[in-house]
């Protein structure tokens, strides 16, 4: 289960980190850092030669949301290497031998845990815009999917999410199949192509005194149409900090980006489709008894149905 006894990780993590740094390391404290449905996030205190260092351990959860920790580790490492605000990743463990799931370890970035507002949001929009425009090839980023155009990228992402849902459910969901066809039919043939974070907005960045110290949660990061991010932030993750209209104003002011009503609708449908597909993986894990946690049951039923309900409405309008 997600809420396993995290104290039991102390011993194996002490040995793991000792072997990585080739020094005796002792995990002295472990606590849950944030709630993640697809990843468990633990803050650990590690004592090495009398000094304490803090790390975050990001642990996969039975392939929920169909994303890979290895790609996330790679992308974060390259971004950090070019000075982008992201935590420095340390070690990737692909096997399940140690903690029962693959995981990676990164530096802990401390910040203000209050909901961001005002200038912090402006700074975030600027940083996200920089991510979108970063020359990913020169920065040494390596993605699993490497489309060459925004059109190809969008079709690839639709297929990616449709295949994730198809492999997670025992029966087809016709309204999702219709949505996939709708997205393919209306897919943009041009537009800004770049690094898409995939889950941007408040809750997924660390900030302090108006500065963005780190973007987090890169598991959905990919190459694609950057409008996916702008709409996702304003509609799905951002409303608790700023109204959708407020976000739209920031995009125009700081990123010189203004979507048409049709573009907005398209990317709203896309994000609801992505969420709805991803959420089916929670139910797969729950129903298989691998992780009978209540959050997974809810994500796989009510949250999935809510997204599907909304996207079907948008397509029908």
């Amino acid at each position: 289960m997600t809420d396993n006894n995290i104290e039991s990780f102390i011993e194996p993590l002490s040995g793991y980190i000792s072997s990585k740094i080739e020094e005796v390391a002792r995990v002295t404290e472990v606590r849950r850092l944030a709630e993640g449905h697809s990843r468990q996030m633990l803050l650990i205190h590690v004592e090495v030669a009398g000094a304490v260092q803090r790390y975050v351990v990001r642990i996969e959860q039975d392939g929920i949301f169909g994303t890979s920790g290895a790609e996330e580790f790679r992308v974060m490492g390259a971004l950090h290497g070019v000075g982008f605000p992201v935590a420095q990743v340390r070690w990737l463990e692909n096997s399940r031998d140690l903690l029962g799931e693959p995981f990676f370890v990164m530096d802990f970035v401390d910040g203000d845990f209050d909901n961001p507002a005002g200038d912090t949001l402006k700074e975030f929009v600027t940083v996200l815009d920089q991510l979108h425009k970063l020359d990913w090839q020169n920065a040494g980023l390596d993605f699993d999917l490497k489309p060459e155009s925004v059109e190809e990228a969008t079709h690839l992402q639709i297929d990616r999410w449709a295949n994730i849902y198809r492999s997670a459910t025992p029966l087809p969901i016709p309204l999702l199949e219709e949505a996939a066809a709708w997205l393919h039919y209306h897919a943009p043939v041009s537009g800004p192509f770049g690094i898409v974070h995939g889950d941007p907005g408040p809750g997924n960045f660390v900030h302090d005194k108006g500065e963005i110290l780190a973007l987090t949660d890169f598991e959905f990061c990919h190459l694609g149409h950057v409008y996916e991010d702008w709409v996702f932030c304003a509609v799905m993750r951002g409303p608790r900090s700023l109204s959708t209209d407020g976000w739209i104003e920031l995009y125009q002011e700081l990123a010189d980006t203004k979507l048409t009503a049709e573009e907005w609708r398209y990317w709203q449908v896309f994000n609801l489709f992505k969420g709805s597909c991803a959420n089916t993986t929670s139910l797969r894990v729950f129903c298989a008894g691998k992780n009978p946690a209540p959050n997974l049951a809810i994500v796989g039923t009510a949250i999935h149905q809510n997204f599907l309900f909304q996207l079907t409405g948008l397509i029908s309008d």
Partner: protein
Amino acid sequence: MTDTRLPTDDQLWLCMSETMRSVILPRLDDPWARAALIRLIGLAEFAPKRGEDPSEQRTSETIACIDQLASSYPDIAAQLPAGWPGVDQRQVLDLCSQLLAASVGDENEQANAVRIQLKTLLKVHLTEDFTVSSPLITSFAGGLNDR
């Protein structure tokens, strides 16, 4: 439960929900445990509201809807799988997927009929499910629903 000497499933779910609400939750301080318990309460209240499995009824309704479409449109009749209407739920849902996807971007009479009749029926099924499950969204966000 037909043996009236024993509690029903509904009574057992109520027992779980009420005990979690009034006995366990007020004594729980750990935020992670509280969040999990509130979600568990939501699920314990959701489970008895689901009623009988509607799959069989919905499959029959969907077959009837497709039959009606097939009687008006030969293209749809040609897509009916062998053995129709004696087919399983997966075959029916596969056909629904095929018909809905093929109607995207098409404004002809058949595509409109698929949207008006078949899609409407599937939306009714989704609405039925979501009406029962939607209180779980409050539970997910950490809130208790009204009893």
